[in-house]
């Protein structure tokens, strides 16, 4: 019996301190985000947009669209890129040996014609089969290559690109027309001190869209999707904004991010042996910055909006989450020597420990917390109270933060303007700790296991297309 007592006290203590630490960190980041967004509240952004729409003030950007079996979404993505308000871009679609009709769809839709073009090989990649140029859009290129994974496709895009900055966009994402202009803002205004910037990602399921433009945002009816909407808001408010303020960002979403080509090439491009190639590139660039003792920054920009399709079924979501977690683990592991290494400044001393402790190991401890609560209820007595205490912390951690994020977003950005939608999100946030949270925790733990067993796959999710009608779970 004593062993049970000791282990219950020990695990209870660990979980309790973990929860308190995480709640305190989230509170801090939330307050920083609050002040940041509060400052900008009601500022008219159009002045900046109009001033920088001229090529004279901006820098040209190559837009890379890696596509593997994206025949459903790729055309809309390219249209959204053609709709962008930005003075100088080139669109490079990279077909990574798709087995569906992606190649044919793009060729037919944009009247692609094969061209002879010498590719400047900055990064070693799989073989390029053919390069095409659109006959109707001068700045649109299609590269057909052997299958090598998303990272390899992006590296080909970097090699083919001619501009000093590139922006990677997922084949299923839709960009707001001003998003590139705004994500480039820190890069342009800092005279190159900011060498990479990531935009805010939103979930497009349920939105109304035509020819690559979202013309009406609408909350999805699918509960799983709504939970992901809330989760994105949380990540945005309780992480990215605050971390970015202190140059501590380790993740800028691969669905929409801009990098300086020079730095990306120096980092060896996207890593092809790692699942989370976008995170790995960010971490690698941070590492280079510190090793070269350069004064450079990587930023997260709160307003640029990239709309992406979220998984609508448990199976696809499970696959996505375990991949993300595995990718995060792999990236941190590859650069593990940065952890608590003063040579790497705040990245090594704060970001790395935070990501290891809260983001990577968090799911294991949290899942342990759920199991602890169940066991403690059965053991009764004093543990009964400990279980209630933990449960209340879970409520703060899960419910309170989620509701606060939803409300704060509604106040500052108002993406979903209908009252009914706001109420729906708030009500659903209350259910999070009972079903969504434990499920994602389990999937993330699976990611840890997969990392240990070194499993990998391309992990493309099955698209139904953003504009398609969805079914409720």
């Amino acid at each position, binding site marked *: 019996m004593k062993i049970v007592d000791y282990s219950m006290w020990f695990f209870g203590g660990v979980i309790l301190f973990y929860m308190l630490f995480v709640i305190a960190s989230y509170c801090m980041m939330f307050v920083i985000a609050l002040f940041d967004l509060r*400052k*900008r*509240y*009601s*500022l*008219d952004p*159009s*002045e900046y947009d*109009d*001033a*920088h729409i001229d090529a*004279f*003030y*901006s820098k040209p950007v190559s837009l890379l669209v890696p596509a593997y079996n994206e025949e459903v979404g790729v055309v809309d993505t390219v249209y959204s890129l053609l709709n962008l308000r930005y003075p100088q871009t080139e669109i490079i679609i990279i077909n990574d040996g798709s087995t569906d009709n992606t190649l044919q769809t793009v060729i037919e839709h944009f009247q692609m014609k094969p*061209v*002879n*073009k*010498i590719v*400047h090989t900055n990064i070693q990649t799989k073989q390029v089969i053919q390069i095409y140029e659109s006959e109707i859009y001068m700045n649109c290129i299609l590269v057909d290559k052997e299958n090598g994974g998303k990272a390899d496709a992006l590296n080909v895009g970097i090699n083919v690109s001619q501009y000093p900055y590139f922006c990677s966009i997922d084949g299923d994402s839709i960009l707001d027309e001003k998003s590139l202009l705004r994500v480039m803002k820190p890069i*342009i*205004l*800092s*005279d190159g001190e900011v060498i990479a910037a990531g935009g805010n990602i939103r979930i497009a399921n349920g939105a109304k869209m035509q020819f690559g433009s979202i013309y009406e945002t609408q909350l999805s009816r699918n509960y799983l999707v709504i939970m992901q909407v809330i989760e994105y808001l949380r990540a945005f408010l309780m992480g990215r904004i605050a971390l970015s303020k202190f140059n501590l960002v380790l993740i800028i979403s691969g669905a929409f991010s801009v990098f300086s080509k020079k730095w990306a090439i120096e980092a060896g491009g996207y890593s092809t042996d790692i699942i989370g190639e976008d995170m790995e590139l960010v971490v690698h660039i941070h590492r280079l910055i510190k090793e070269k003792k350069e004064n450079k920054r990587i930023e997260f920009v709160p307003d640029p909006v990239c709309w992406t399709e979220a998984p609508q079924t448990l199976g696809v979501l499970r696959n996505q989450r375990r991949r993300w977690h595995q990718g995060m683990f792999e990236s941190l592991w590859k650069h593990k020597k940065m952890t608590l290494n003063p040579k790497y400044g705040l990245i090594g001393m704060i970001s790395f420990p935070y990501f290891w402790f809260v983001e990577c190991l968090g799911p294991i401890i949290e899942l342990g917390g759920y199991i602890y609560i169940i066991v403690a209820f059965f053991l009764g007595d*004093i543990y009964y*109270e*400990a279980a*209630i*205490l933990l449960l*209340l*912390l879970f*409520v*703060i951690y899960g419910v*309170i933060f989620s*509701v*606060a994020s939803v*409300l704060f977003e*509604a*106040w500052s950005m108002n993406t979903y*303007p209908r*009252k009914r939608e*706001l*109420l729906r999100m*708030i009500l659903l946030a209350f259910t999070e700790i009972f079903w969504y949270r434990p499920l994602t925790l389990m999937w993330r733990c699976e990611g840890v296991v997969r990392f240990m067993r070194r499993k990998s796959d391309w992990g493309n999710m099955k698209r139904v297309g953003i504009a398609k009608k969805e079914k409720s779970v």
Partner: protein
Amino acid sequence: MIGLSIHFLLSVIALLLVLFFIFVLYLFFQRERENHFLTARETYIKNYSQCWYEYLFNDEIFSVVLVPRGRAQVEAIEIIFSSYLKNIINENVRQKIKEFSNVYLIKFYAQDLRSKRWSIRMNALYRISELHIDELLEACKKLERTNISETEYFQLLKIYSSFQPDLFIEKIKVPNASYSESEYRRLFVLLEEDVFIRFFDEFDRWPANIQYAVIDTAAAKKNMKYIDRLKQLLTHDVTEIKIRALKGLFEIGVIDDIEPFVPFVTSDFWEARLMVGKIFKHVPLTYTYSYLELLLQDENWWVRSQAAKTIAEDREGLAKLQQFIASSSDQYGIEMAQEIVARKQGNR
């Protein structure tokens, strides 16, 4: 102890939930208010945009109904003015907008300049600059004396640059804040020619990002008066300045003498060689081919590529490239020439 903590946490959660509830009510109230505001704004635009058009473009008599009553109508007028200012270049219209703003909008922006909120003050500064409300210049100077942010100071500089250029130059000499090149360009592009040229006179006293912005702005203005100034910079000690001057001269696009550019064909910096390759686009191939042939065999890919493109643009270019392919032993140069020839032929 645990009992106490549970009690404490329950109280925190209950308190937060009550706060959330109040916040939800506030949000709903705020949305209602926003909707009213938007409706009032749209109604004004719907009712009076035609009147505005008649007044601004057809010289109709100004009607007092156009005078804004309240913030929603001010915003509606901002939208109407902004659409005209961005899309139409008409001095008469600009003057009318300026006169109206200086009389009827001034009190709103003066009040905004005194706001405690940074975003409200910024919006007011944007409008003062956009609508040319020079009556508020003194209020702007007063704002400068308070504890303002760098972004506000930038907007003030922008306002000074159009309302009082001498003050602008005076301010910019004192390094109160450092801005990026792109921001300096935004300031310089608005300057009158006689004010802007003064930046060349004192070129070496400016910090690097102002120097770069001056060169780039001169290029963007495409004014032939700046050609000599840029040519003088080709002998500057700083390589970056030389390269930018080359770029500026390429963009202005008037080359009467290739001599100043010839030394750059063998420059140690590939960016300079690339720019010469571009500049030679504006000169007949007979004068430049020998240099371009050298550049076509350059060690740098971008230089080779540019040289091939420049040659191909000339009427005799394709023949010259084919001749190069047949006679040269430089494999990289041949490949580049082949690619450009294939492209050119494919486009026919």
